[in-house]
């Protein structure tokens, strides 16, 4: 069976007006996601994870350009679609949830109008039926008294409720793929747990594929089947989540996993990663991680490592770990 989403050497670059400066925000990323699976894309700020998500939806800002690669969704290359065709796909087949729910809800429209909107646009549903469906959707995201809530406005909801409403909008047209960009960063811990469980239930009920864009390895451990680790625009490691937590191959992934505090070994010293995340407009030569890498060899300083694929499609970009 062909995967639901397959990226082949996808590159997205930000180009300055004169064309003199190029930032390779996403640089030759290859990955695949099966229907119903959950993929975690982890990385620090500036690693290109949000640009990757926006590339898939083709919602990039004007300064960004596609710089090659293929993006197959259900066997069709999204990069060859016209803007009109993309509009048919967005919200209908691929939906997205953003980090800040207040910014994704219009304060001037009722909750019902906003949850019903994708149904009215994509399914040409009449207003009354779309509202009924919106009420049912609110119920499915565990909003109590949905009949009254549909008539209310975003400011009348708490943060957790807003995020669940945005989730209801995302699944309104029963998409095949839902991309969630840091969906729980603004939520409190117990509300985050509620929301993650809800997403998992929705995924089970609708057979959704999920992409989680996050910097939080805990979310990856809890939710994901596969994980893609990004560093400075490149995919440095990709594989099954257990494989990567048990035996990370890339030194960056390994260091990241070692640097998070755990309950089991409280008050022992953390293994910190030295240095700073790199500036994408002035990347070091060779492998972008080499200035911070404990295993760096001479070759890393001059030449960027290629992707090597190991057992069970566990891929890594590293001269040392890949050979």
């Amino acid at each position, binding site marked *: 069976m062909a995967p639901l989403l397959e990226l082949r050497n996808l590159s997205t670059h930000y180009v300055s007006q004169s064309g003199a400066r190029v930032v390779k925000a996403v640089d030759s990323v290859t990955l695949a996601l099966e229907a119903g699976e959950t993929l975690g894309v982890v990385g*620090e*700020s500036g690693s290109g994870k949000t640009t990757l998500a926006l590339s898939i939806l083709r919602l990039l800002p004007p300064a960004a350009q596609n710089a090659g690669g293929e993006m197959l969704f259900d066997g069709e290359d999204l990069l060859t679609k016209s803007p009109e065709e993309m509009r048919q796909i967005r919200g209908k087949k691929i939906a997205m949830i953003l980090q800040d729910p207040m910014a994704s809800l219009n304060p001037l429209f009722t909750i019902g109008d906003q949850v019903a909107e994708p149904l009215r646009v994509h399914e040409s549903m009449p207003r009354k039926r779309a509202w009924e469906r919106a009420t049912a959707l609110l119920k499915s995201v565990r909003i109590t008294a949905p009949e009254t809530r549909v008539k209310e406005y975003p400011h009348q909801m*708490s943060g*957790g*409720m807003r995020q669940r409403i945005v989730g209801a909008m995302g699944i309104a047209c029963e998409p095949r793929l839902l991309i969630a960009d840091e969906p729980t960063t603004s939520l*409190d*811990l*117990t*509300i*985050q*747990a*509620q929301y993650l*469980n809800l997403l998992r239930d929705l995924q089970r009920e609708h057979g959704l594929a999920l992409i989680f864009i996050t*910097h*939080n*390895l*805990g*979310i990856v*451990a*809890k939710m994901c089947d596969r994980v893609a680790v990004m560093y400075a625009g490149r995919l440095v490691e990709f594989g099954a*989540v*257990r494989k990567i*937590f048990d035996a990370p191959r890339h030194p960056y992934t390994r*260091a*990241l996993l070692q*640097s*998070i*505090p*755990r*309950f*089991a070994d*409280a*008050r022992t*010293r*953390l*293994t*910190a*990663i*030295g240095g*700073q*995340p790199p500036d994408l407009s002035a990347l070091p030569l060779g492998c972008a991680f080499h200035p*911070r890498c404990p295993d760096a060899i001479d070759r890393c300083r001059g030449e960027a490592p290629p992707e090597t694929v190991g057992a069970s499609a566990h891929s890594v970009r590293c001269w040392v770990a890949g050979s």
Partner: protein
Amino acid sequence: MSLLLEAVELTKHFPLKSGLFGKSKGAVRAVDGISFTVEKGRTLGVVGESGCGKTTTAKLVLGLEEPTSGTLRVNGADLSNLDSGARRRYRRAVQAVFQDPYASLNPRMRVGSIIMEPLITHEPVHGAELTKRLHRLLELVGLPTKAADLFPHEFSGGQRQRIAIARALSLSPALVVLDEPVSALDVSIRAQILNLLRDLQAELGLAYLFIAHDLAAVAHMSHTIAVMYLGRIVEIGEANTVANAARHPYTRALFAAALPSHPDEKREEIVLSGEVPSPLNPPTGCHFHPRCPSVMDRCRSEGAKLRQIETVQVACHLYE
């Protein structure tokens, strides 16, 4: 062990007023009768969700808010009875590092001036002595000497947080309030800053009041953990016990909601229904009863007092 700071029944209510003549409409009970101690060289971690009163507690300790009632004792002396000189000494001894190092550093001042400003305000130091102190502080937080001549925008988030820490240390404080000191930083940088804070504590004998959302980080940093819910402490005690063998139903749910560090790590599933109620109109009895999975009749009418059980104190009728 020397007791540094002791809070007894500390309370802060923010009155709500409306209309032209400021008719009182009740009060937000941000902090509602909490007691804790901070000892020299130790860390008290405070956890809880938004609105539980963590930040108000920090402000009370920093002397930025006056308590409505209750007392803060510093080395045995009541803070509200101190004369202005002693109060000034208290403010020197208690410093803070805030969450966002992009907001807490003046973009128009050079790093050296930022770090030295508290020192110049409080002490008659000049010239070579000042430079010596500055270099010592930069070295303590792991920044190069040349950093002093640069502006904050020339540094990354982690380095800026180091600058903020150096500024907090410039007056050799006894207690540093750390309000979410790593949550604005990149994941790969957090461990650096947490390690730095631990090293500084060991080297300088600092006490920390550590406030954070990240429970694993709090467990990692703290000797004692206080769990707050709607302005009250529901459980306080030895950090490892609170983190790994919590007793209060809220603490258990909170730590159960923490994310696993490995896909095979199964945490107890306690998903609370509902959300934190408004501190303007908290539930009667135990504040947690509307969401509590083990609620009993008396919880609805009667709040529980903190009781000592082994190394922790718990405020819950289940343990009476």
